């Protein structure tokens, strides 16, 4: 048994016993009596008018209970919501089932409800849709061209918004002939989040009580409850959403989906529980995608490597409709585009474009991986252009640790950082100087070793409510029951991150009681009165702080009761070893005794309410800005073009570390996803808008043997933004790793004069480059 303080220790997870024994309950594991199963008939066209939807054969199939089309729900079920607030944003109507036309492959056209899932699936294939195909708008640049087919004619054209960030004296920069201007187009390809558990929901409406209960695989139960109440017309007070065990999200379940709305509608109509479990192919077609930006970058750099200006024109492919945060994501890219460098002039123009594809939205990193990729590729291009070492270029452009808090030209204020420290540490871990020598040796032998750097900063612990679409605070409560056991409720909704453990560490340390006496609950809106959810690396930094502060409130109350009993001042008392005692331990009372005093209330000091329960809604004053430095070492097989990951070194700084084991887990998983983007993953639409990577046989989720050992270390630069000093680590690995890998591969290919290759860096692309050179030379 670990002893206090627990914070900072590798504490095994409270979550695990149920998970490793297969005894946890994900949505599809929940069985309610009389449950009906729902499945969807989905569009096979990227863009088509619906001439007719004939459901008669589906309705007639034995075992089918109901079939609904867009016409059936019209006026009875609200649109899929978008919460992003951008000036001038165009928001198309987004019905849960298509009514007049379909705008992407996989768009739900009809819902079939049946007694079992096989019958429902069969009947969905009996829905006869007469489509009138329209030209598919697939390329976002062509979508903006005059004369392009307009996806939402009411909105005039395919441009959803243009957002401009301009802080710079460009006239002066353009006039300065000593500056080099380096230009490069970077493509950040579309990805599929692929949580191992797909989406799914059970909606259960009780006509007698007029209550709607929804179990959903979601990251945001409270937001979902509000939105489903609005969409379905059930009074929000009578609506309950439960996020049971959730099998991963990575941002894809930070959303409100049409299918969840239809499940509520169907259950309300039928008075029975309706279960919808998404298939993997549906998941790839109809769950939000990530990334998908084209970034035209211009870097203004002095001959000594000092970068003085950065321009970027971004085209963000939003897909056909907005999901919850679709248009907001690329605006994060603009905010974080300067990375770790205090570049005085910045210009970013972001154009959001409608195309006939599934919506993009938050996927692990959500706009920041794109920003980091832009600035970290740019730094390597500068190094290449000026023939400097990439590490020197970075060092030259870092602000000093004493400069923080630092407001950049983007208007963002970074809290704390020490970028030189993380870079030096990772270079040392990697043996950078030695690696460069090895590289030189190998090149002479015709072998291609690559060394790639990336140093990142990210914006997380989201965030101040003034900067968030619908609140950035978080709720936490702590209650002590008569037996002395502690119940913690959090408005966050972790789904693998492990906060049942780290929150219990905070509480056990705060009260000086055993870890096992603390139980953390989350995810049920009837149990937890308010909450925002888990995303944006906010759960520990914001949600954990709410709990920490609730503990502090309770301790104040308990100290007053204990002080009254012991005849000392409350301020003299400390909580440790399940006791409340003076610093010299001369006066002491057990934790359990004060719990009893407080709850049974026989001799409470005047003015103290009975009971031990406190809550806190923590509103952060700023975001936090974790950072780090990564080195990726690759070897290229000259015959096949394959990239072999030889080493990966990471030094991440997420502020104070509450549980290093959980931090390692987050870093490793993030690295795997970021490396996946760099080398293998790509969601492909063909020119007709069909998805050609629609199963896991085609979409390349990396496997165990594709990775090298990750050597990761940490530095701890605490943030003053919250009393825990924690910044967040959920997305750092993903954000930092993608450019490190690409920079490494490009570095390996220097003998071929390669300046840039777009991701994913598949063997065929690299083989062509090597082969063309060999054939030519």
């Amino acid at each position, binding site marked *: 048994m670990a002893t206090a303080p627990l914070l900072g220790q590798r504490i095994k997870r409270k979550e695990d016993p149920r998970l*490793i*024994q297969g005894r946890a*309950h994900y949505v599809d594991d929940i069985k309610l009596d009389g449950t009906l199963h729902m499945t969807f008939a989905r569009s096979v066209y990227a863009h088509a008018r619906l001439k007719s939807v004939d459901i008669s054969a589906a309705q007639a199939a034995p075992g089918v209970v109901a079939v609904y089309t867009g016409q059936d729900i019209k006026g009875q079920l609200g649109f899929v919501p978008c919460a992003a607030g951008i000036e001038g944003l165009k928001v198309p109507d987004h019905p849960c089932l298509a009514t007049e036309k379909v705008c992407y492959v996989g768009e739900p056209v009809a819902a079939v409800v049946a007694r079992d899932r096989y019958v429902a699936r069969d009947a969905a294939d009996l829905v006869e849709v007469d489509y009138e195909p329209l030209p598919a708008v697939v390329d976002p640049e062509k979508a903006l061209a005059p004369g392009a087919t307009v996806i939402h004619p009411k909105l005039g054209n395919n441009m959803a918004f243009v957002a401009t960030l301009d802080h710079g004296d460009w006239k002066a920069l353009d006039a300065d002939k000593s500056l080099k201007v380096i230009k490069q187009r970077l493509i950040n390809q579309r990805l599929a989040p692929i949580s191992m558990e797909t989406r799914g929901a059970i909606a259960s409406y009780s006509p007698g009580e007029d209550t709607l209960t929804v179990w959903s695989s979601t990251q945001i139960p409270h937001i979902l409850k509000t939105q489903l109440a609005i969409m379905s017309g059930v009074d929000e007070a009578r609506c309950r959403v439960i996020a049971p065990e959730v099998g991963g999200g990575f941002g894809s379940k930070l959303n409100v989906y049409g299918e969840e709305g239809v499940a509520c509608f169907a259950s309300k109509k039928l008075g029975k529980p309706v279960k919808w479990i998404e298939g993997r192919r549906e998941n790839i077609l109809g769950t939000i995608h990530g990334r998908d930006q084209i970034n035209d970058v211009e870097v203004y750099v002095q001959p000594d490597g000092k970068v003085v200006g950065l321009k970027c024109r971004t085209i963000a492919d939003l897909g056909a409709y907005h999901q919850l945060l679709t248009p907001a994501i690329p605006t994060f890219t603009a905010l974080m585009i300067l990375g770790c460098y205090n570049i005085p002039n910045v210009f970013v123009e972001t154009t959001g474009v409608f195309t006939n594809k599934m919506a993009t939205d938050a996927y692990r990193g959500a706009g920041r991986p794109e920003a980091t990729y832009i600035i970290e590729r740019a730094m390597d291009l500068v190094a290449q252009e000026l023939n400097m070492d990439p590490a020197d270029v970075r060092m030259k452009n870092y602000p000093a640790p004493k400069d923080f808090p630092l407001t950049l030209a983007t208007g963002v204020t970074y809290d704390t950082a020490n970028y030189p420290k993380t870079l030096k540490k990772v270079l040392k871990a990697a043996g950078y100087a030695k690696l460069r020598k090895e590289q030189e040796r190998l090149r002479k032998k015709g072998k291609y070793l690559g060394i790639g750097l990336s140093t990142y900063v990210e914006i997380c612990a989201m965030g101040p409510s003034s900067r968030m679409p619908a609140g950035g605070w978080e709720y936490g409560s702590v209650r002590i029951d008569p037996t002395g056991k502690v119940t913690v409720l959090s408005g966050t909704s972790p789904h693998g991150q492990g906060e049942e453990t780290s929150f219990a560490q905070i509480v056990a340390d705060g009260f000086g009681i055993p870890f096992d006496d603390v139980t953390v609950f989350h995810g049920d809106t009837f149990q937890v009165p308010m909450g925002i959810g888990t995303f944006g690396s906010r759960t520990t930094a914001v949600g954990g702080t709410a709990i920490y502060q609730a503990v502090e409130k309770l301790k104040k109350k308990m100290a007053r009761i204990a002080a009254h009993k012991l005849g000392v001042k409350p301020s003299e008392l400390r909580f440790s070893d399940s006791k409340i005692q003076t610093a010299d331990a001369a006066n002491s009372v057990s934790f359990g005794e004060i719990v009893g005093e407080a709850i049974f209330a026989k001799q409470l000091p005047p003015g103290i309410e009975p009971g031990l329960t406190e809550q806190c809604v923590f509103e952060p004053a700023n975001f936090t800005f974790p950072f780090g430095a990564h080195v990726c070492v690759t070897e290229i097989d000259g015959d096949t073009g394959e990239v072999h990951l030889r080493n990966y070194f990471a030094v991440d700084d997420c502020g104070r570390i509450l549980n290093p084991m959980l931090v390692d887990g987050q870093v490793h998983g*993030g690295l795997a996803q970021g490396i996946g983007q760099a080398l293998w993953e790509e969601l492909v639409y063909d020119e007709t808008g069909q998805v050609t990577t629609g199963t896991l046989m085609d979409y390349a989720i990396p*496997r*165990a043997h594709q990775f090298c050992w990750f050597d990761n270390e940490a530095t701890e630069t605490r943030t003053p933004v919250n009393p825990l000093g924690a910044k967040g680590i959920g997305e750092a690995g993903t954000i930092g790793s993608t450019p490190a890998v690409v920079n490494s591969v490009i570095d390996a290919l220097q003998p071929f004069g390669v300046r840039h290759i777009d991701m994913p860096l598949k063997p065929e692309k690299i083989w062509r480059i090597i082969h063309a050179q060999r054939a030519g030379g």
Partner: protein
Amino acid sequence: MKIRLKVNGALREDEVEPRLLLVHYLRDVAGLTGTHIGCETSICGACTVLVNGEAVKSCTLFAVQADGADIKTIEGLAPDATTGGQLHPLQQGFWEEHGLQCGFCTPGMIIAAQQLLSRNPRPTREEIRKGLEGNLCRCTGYQHIVKAVEHAAARMNPQA
């Protein structure tokens, strides 16, 4: 069709549709929801169970094909653990080494690892990675899974 089979040591006899997938049989008929469905194309391995001692992806086998078989699922690995008994060393290894996050791939991963260790009692890290290539995990980046399997191997086969 009628099938007779052994699931986690208990004999069962059920009437099933010929097209019922084994994974749906286990989850919906036998009530063993520890076995998950992640892809339906035999790629992800979330549905891995032992059929006559061999790791099989139960989403691409019909229940009727398992007629007469001896099946073990995650629930059968250490059935007494919920009543105070020991966890299986693999379960313990995954817990100790933080070999899971969301837990969705974990039952399949543990079953696949069990087959791996039955064939190769003390695998190298590279062999563990190769041995688990039929199972996808999106959370961990696999490193802690490799350590979890090493942890279990050292306890299950200290002499090997």
